[in-house]
C-alpha cells in the first residue's frame, strides 16, 4: 500500500523546507510521546531533520522516512538514558494536562511496545506503516500491540 504522506503533495519532489514546515511539529509531538520530554523531543527531531536532509532527493516517502528516523532517535535516546541512569523527562506537573495514570503507565513500557501504541492510537497508522516505522515484519505489529496493551492493563487494572 502507499504510505500516506499527510500534508505533502504526493508524487512530488518535496523540498527540505516543505518537509520541515509540514512535519516538524508533528514529529516533535511524536518524539514527546516517546520520550516524555519536550526538550529532548526537539533535540531529537532537529537531529533527525539534519540526518534526513542529505537523503531527501532519493526518497519516495520522505515523511515516512523521517518518522522512522525520529522513532529510531528516540530508541537511541532510551538506550543512552539506561546507560547513564538519568531520567531527564519533564517534571511532574510541567505538562498542561493533569496527571494521568495511563500516561505514567505508558512510560513504564519497553520502548518498542510504547512506540507501537503511540503509532497506532495517536498517529492512527496502519499495520504496514507501523511495521515500516519500527523496522519489524508486519506480522509482528499486532502481537506487539496486544502485548503492549496487556502490559498497560497489568499496571492500571491490577
Amino acid at each position: 500500500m502507499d504510505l500516506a504522506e499527510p500534508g505533502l503533495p504526493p508524487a512530488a519532489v518535496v523540498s527540505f523546507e516543505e518537509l520541515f514546515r509540514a512535519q516538524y511539529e508533528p514529529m516533535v509531538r511524536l518524539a514527546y510521546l516517546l520520550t516524555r520530554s519536550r526538550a529532548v523531543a526537539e533535540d531529537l527531531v532537529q537531529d533527525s531533520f539534519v540526518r534526513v536532509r542529505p537523503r531527501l532527493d532519493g526518497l519516495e516517502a520522505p515523511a515516512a522516512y523521517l518518522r522512522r528516523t525520529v522513532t529510531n532517535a528516540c530508541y537511541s535516546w532510551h538506550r543512552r538514558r539506561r546507560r547513564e541512569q538519568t531520567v531527564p523527562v519533564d517534571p511532574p506537573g510541567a505538562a498542561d494536562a493533569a496527571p494521568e495514570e495511563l500516561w505514567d503507565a505508558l512510560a513504564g513500557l519497553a520502548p518498542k511496545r510504547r512506540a507501537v501504541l503511540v503509532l497506532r492510537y495517536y498517529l492512527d497508522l496502519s499495520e504496514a506503516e507501523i511495521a515500516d516505522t519500527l523496522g519489524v515484519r508486519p506480522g509482528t505489529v499486532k502481537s506487539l500491540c496486544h502485548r503492549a496493551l496487556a502490559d498497560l492493563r497489568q499496571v492500571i487494572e491490577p
Partner: protein
Amino acid sequence: MSPDTGEDFPSDELTERLSRVLAERAGSVRASDDAWSRVQRATAAERGRRHRRLRLVIGVPAGAVGLAAAALVGVLVIRSGGFGAARTSSTAFSAAAGPAAGGASSGAPVHPGAFAPDSGSSSAVASVGAASPAAGPARPVPSGFRGLSATFVSLDHGWLLGTAPCPGPPATASGGTSSAAAPSGAAPGAGCSWVLTTTDGGRSWSAVGRPPTSRVRSVRFADPSNGFVFGPELWATHDGGVSWSPVTLPGLTTAQPEVDAVEAGAGRVHAVVVDGPVVRIYDADPGGSAWTAAGLTLDTGAGPVPSAQLVLAGSSGWVLENDRTVVGGARLAAGRWTAWTPPCTQVAGPAVLAAASPTDLLAVCDVGRWATPEGEQLYVSHDGGATFGAGRPVPVEGVTGLAASAATVVVSGFSTGTDGLARPTLELSGDGGAAWRTVYSGVGNGDWADVGFTTPTRGVVVADGTLLVSSDGGRTWSLRPAGG
C-alpha cells in the same frame, strides 16, 4: 485518517482512553519559534561533516599514496556551517550565485548551475550497458548531470558519481544491469545515478554506467576495474563502472544499515557501516565479493546522527565516528583493526580526519559546537594518531572537508565575506596550520565533497557539482566541468 484502520487492532475502552490521553499530551506540545533557523544551522554544519570523507587517493597503484614519511608541512580544509545571519543556507547561497566571487586567487567561481546541458541531451540517457570499461564508445554526459563524488586511481583515470533527471518513460530492459528508468526508492523527478569516467584528468568525461539506485552519494575505485558507490547503500562494479550489483555485507542486524565510508588501499577495500547501535568495519578483496567483518565494533553513541569516517594511508587506517561529538575510533595496523581513541573526544564537537602519510594524521575539530562554540581547530599527529599537538585555529566557520599532502593542508569550508554572506572556500596552509590563505572562493550552496590528494601535488574536490583540480599541491585550482 489512515485509509485502512479496520485491521482488527484492539479497540475498547482502554484504547479509546489511550487515544484521548495521547492526543491531549501531544496537543500540549508546540514547536519552538526558532526551530527552523536552528535546523538550518545544524544541517549546514552536518552537511559539511558528512562530506568530509576524505578521498585521499583511493588505492592508487604503486605508491601514489605512499607519501614517504615526509614531515607534514601543509594542509587543506573545506568548511561548512556557521551561516550566521543567513537564515536559509541554500537559498542564501543561491541568491549569491552569479559572477561574484570573493578573494579567489585562482580559477573561476564555482557556479552551482554551471553545467551546460549536453547538446545530445535526450539520447544521452540511453542504456549504457554495452560500454566497455576502458575503450567503449564515448557516451555523452546526461543533460543536467550534477557531480556528487569523485575518485581517481591515477593522475588521469578517474570517475565521477552524480545525478541527472531520470528519463521520462520507463526504459525497457536493454542489457547490462543499469536499465531501470527510475531506481527503486526514487521519487518521480528525483535524480538517477550516473557514473562518468575520464582518462585525461577530468578534461573530458563520458558516461560509463548507471547504478540502478538513487541511494548512493559517493564513489571510490580501487583500481581501473573495481569500484564502489555507497551511502547509504553499497554497490560494486568489476568492469570499470559499466555494470553494478548490490553488495551484501554479513552480520548486519538492522533493516536500515548505512554504509558511511568506503576506501581502498594496500590491495584491500574497507567499508564502515552504521548498523543501528553499532558501527561495523568490513574489508574485502576489491575484485571479490566476500566481505569480512573486523573483530571489533564501535558504539554509535547517544546522538541520533551517527556518522563514520574512514581514512587510509598506505597500510595504515583510521575510523572516526561522530555522533554530535567524537564518540569513538578504530585504527588499522598490520592488517588488523583495533580500538583507538580519536582526537577531540572532549571538545564537545565533531571532527574531520585526514592523513598525509601512515604516521601523519590530522584532525579539524569543531570545538564547542555542542557547548560554547570556539571555532575550528587543527590538530596534527606525527605518530599515527597516538598523540596530537596543540590545536591551531583554522580561519573558516564550518568545515566540509580536510586533505593533507606531504607539504600542504587544505580545508574546504565556509567564510563570511564583508557583505555578510557565507561562501564556500578552500583554505591552504603550507606550514602545518600556523598560517592560512584562501586559495579558492566560490558561490554555491557549499555542497563540497571529497577533497583529497591523489598525489602530493594533485588535489581534487567536487565543488557544488563540478570537479575542481589542483596540480600544485592545492595552491591553485581549476574547474573540470563534466558537461563540456
